[in-house]
């Protein structure tokens, strides 16, 4: 064991110190939970970003199953100055997957820490560990016949609520803004102490999962998209499953319709007539969800021509824009709201409403209807086949839910993507008053020219959007430092002051969201 030489080391750590740390980890966790061989680590290196895997190669991976183990791990990390990159299920596709922010960080894999600790069907709350997947929780609710509904992102079946919420991901039900529905966290701090947020610190309290704010500063948000602690338990709210669920789609034939769509839907969303995080998806996003591959229609290089997109739309019954929304409630509630929705579309004078009965078993309606009802599936992975080659980065600027803004963002994004020979594949997810404008920058990672173009394109998207006053809400590990700059120097100084206070040895995920005591010079 003592002779082992490591190919990859953490930044600033030599072979000898790393070996000592690995030996300490082995003593703590057992050999089987300390992975250091290249063939054991290869699964953590699969990324979708167009950058070299070597830049994100871990030096080792640890598997922990208890809070006490994690406390002991951070103690060892502090002693040897070992940085750890924690993953829950490691499915953060298009944002970095399971790979660490930079080369040499140790992965702390919490997938085996997978207890569903508590589900309360009366108060509609859950408390879970990091490794619980949406599929596992869904199966649990089904097995116990609990009338509760989950909200999940598109990689639902294999991703998990804790990781998704900690990265402030979104879903498609009325509870689609996941961090809004989070209630109570348990966090292992860098010094090994265990913090419970909200009401969780009160001895004997039973309100941890029902009252978010606790007393004094509410600090849950500090632990999302950050590197101030390791979340080991998270509470969140579940929606009661309604007696009636009515998904529907509205198809629009012109790309110019996006402004009108937003203007007609915003009042309905804000007033909760349409209560869910509805989406407005463009034609190519829909094509991916319908299992269409670009090569079936077009063998050329560069941007897919408009006439090809129109042909796909005609063949598959897809609109240039496609709204997916749903109504939830009693028969009477749904009837009233359905009337309001149909009247609004009728008054608009364009847009074809498609009900579930009319859509039948067709995709992408089928998978969208499942997602809006909290049923796991992976149909949206069809997007990755549109271009093929496994390259994907989410460019996700925030937008006001205002027609003029969405139209402006869409045109700007499309212009830049097309300049690099890439297609605009985008959707708007309507939060409440905001929209997550989510664009999949797809590329073939095996094509060197496309690989290079996608990276340059992403840089320009960030730059140009920033010039127009926009920024993304989340980004992949290769661009975290760049995006942190968009949010201004004062915020960065505060973030690093907190980092110095909570993690002076910089052991927790340095680089996450641009927070890194070693590289920040502000």
């Amino acid at each position, binding site marked *: 064991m003592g002779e082992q030489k490591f190919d990859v080391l953490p930044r600033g750590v030599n072979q000898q110190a790393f070996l000592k740390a690995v030996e300490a980890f082995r003593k703590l966790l057992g050999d089987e939970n300390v*992975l250091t061989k290249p*063939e*054991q680590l*290869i*699964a953590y*290196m*699969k990324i*979708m970003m167009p950058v070299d895997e070597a830049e994100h190669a871990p030096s080792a*991976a640890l598997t922990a*199953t208890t809070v006490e183990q994690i406390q002991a791990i951070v103690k060892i990390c502090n002693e040897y100055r070992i940085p750890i990159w924690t993953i829950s299920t*490691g499915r953060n*596709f298009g944002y970095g*997957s*399971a790979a660490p922010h930079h080369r040499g960080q140790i992965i702390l*894999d919490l*997938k*085996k820490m*997978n*207890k*569903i600790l*508590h*589900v*309360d*069907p*009366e108060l509609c709350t859950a408390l879970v*560990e990091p*490794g619980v997947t949406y*599929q*596992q929780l869904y*199966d*649990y609710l089904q097995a116990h016949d*609990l*009338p509760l509904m989950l909200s999940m992102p598109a990689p639902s*079946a*294999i991703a998990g609520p804790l990781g998704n919420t900690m990265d402030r991901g979104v879903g498609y039900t009325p509870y689609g803004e996941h961090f809004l529905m989070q209630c109570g966290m348990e966090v292992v701090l860098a010094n090994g102490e265990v913090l419970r947020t909200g009401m969780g610190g009160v001895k004997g309290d039973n309100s941890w999962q029902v009252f978010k704010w606790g007393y004094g500063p509410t600090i849950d948000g500090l632990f999302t998209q950050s590197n101030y602690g390791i979340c080991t338990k998270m509470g969140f709210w579940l929606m009661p*499953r309604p*007696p*009636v*669920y*009515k998904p529907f789609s509205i198809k629009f034939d012109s790309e110019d319709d996006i402004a009108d769509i937003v203007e007609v839907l915003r009042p309905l969303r804000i007033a909760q007539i349409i209560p869910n995080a509805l989406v407005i998806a463009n034609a190519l996003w829909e094509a991916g969800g319908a*299992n269409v591959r670009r090569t079936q229609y077009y063998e050329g290089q560069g941007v897919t021509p408009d006439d090809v997109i129109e042909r796909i739309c005609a063949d598959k019954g897809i609109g240039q824009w496609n709204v997916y929304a749903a109504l939830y409630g009693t*028969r009477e509630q*749904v*009837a009233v709201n*359905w*009337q309001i929705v149909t009247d609004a579309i009728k008054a608009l004078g364009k847009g074809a409403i498609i009900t579930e009965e009319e859509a039948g078993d067709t995709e992408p309606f089928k998978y969208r209807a499942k997602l809006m009802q909290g049923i*796991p*599936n*992976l*149909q949206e*992975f*069809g997007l*990755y*086949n549109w271009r*093929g*080659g*496994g390259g*994907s980065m989410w460019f996700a600027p925030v937008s006001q839910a205002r027609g003029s803004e969405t139209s402006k963002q869409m045109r700007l994004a499309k212009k830049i993507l097309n300049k690099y020979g890439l297609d605009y594949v985008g959707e708007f997810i309507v939060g409440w008053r905001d929209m997550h404008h989510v664009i999949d920058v797809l590329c073939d*990672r*095996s094509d060197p020219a496309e690989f290079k173009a996608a990276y340059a394109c992403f840089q320009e998207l960030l730059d140009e959007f920033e010039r127009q006053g926009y920024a993304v809400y989340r980004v992949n590990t290769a661009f975290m430092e760049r995006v942190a700059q968009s949010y201004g120097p004062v915020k960065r100084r505060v973030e690093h002051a907190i980092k110095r206070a909570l993690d002076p040895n910089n052991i927790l995920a340095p680089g996450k969201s641009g927070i890194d005591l070693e590289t920040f010079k502000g």
Partner: protein
Amino acid sequence: MISSKYIPIIKIRPIIVGVVFSISLSVHAEDSAQPRDGEIVYAKICGYCHDVGIGPNIKDRQLPPEYIHYIVRRGLRAMPAFPEPYISDEELKQIGRFIY
């Protein structure tokens, strides 16, 4: 008004208090020490892509266990990689037997 457009998904029914109490205190974990059945892992992970045309069909193709292990651990193009804590070596063997 809507008539036949409703999609009832559950009947509202009273929930027995005792049952609620026991459920609300229950703890459920996938037992990491016990491999899950290959058919179940296939259905809950692999099948979502490989049964619907997103990934290629992998059933009844006599894929060698070594090949399955190689691809699952590395991923392939858009297919994600799954590390050992996510799907164990033994579970991979069972998936291999199920789809063989």
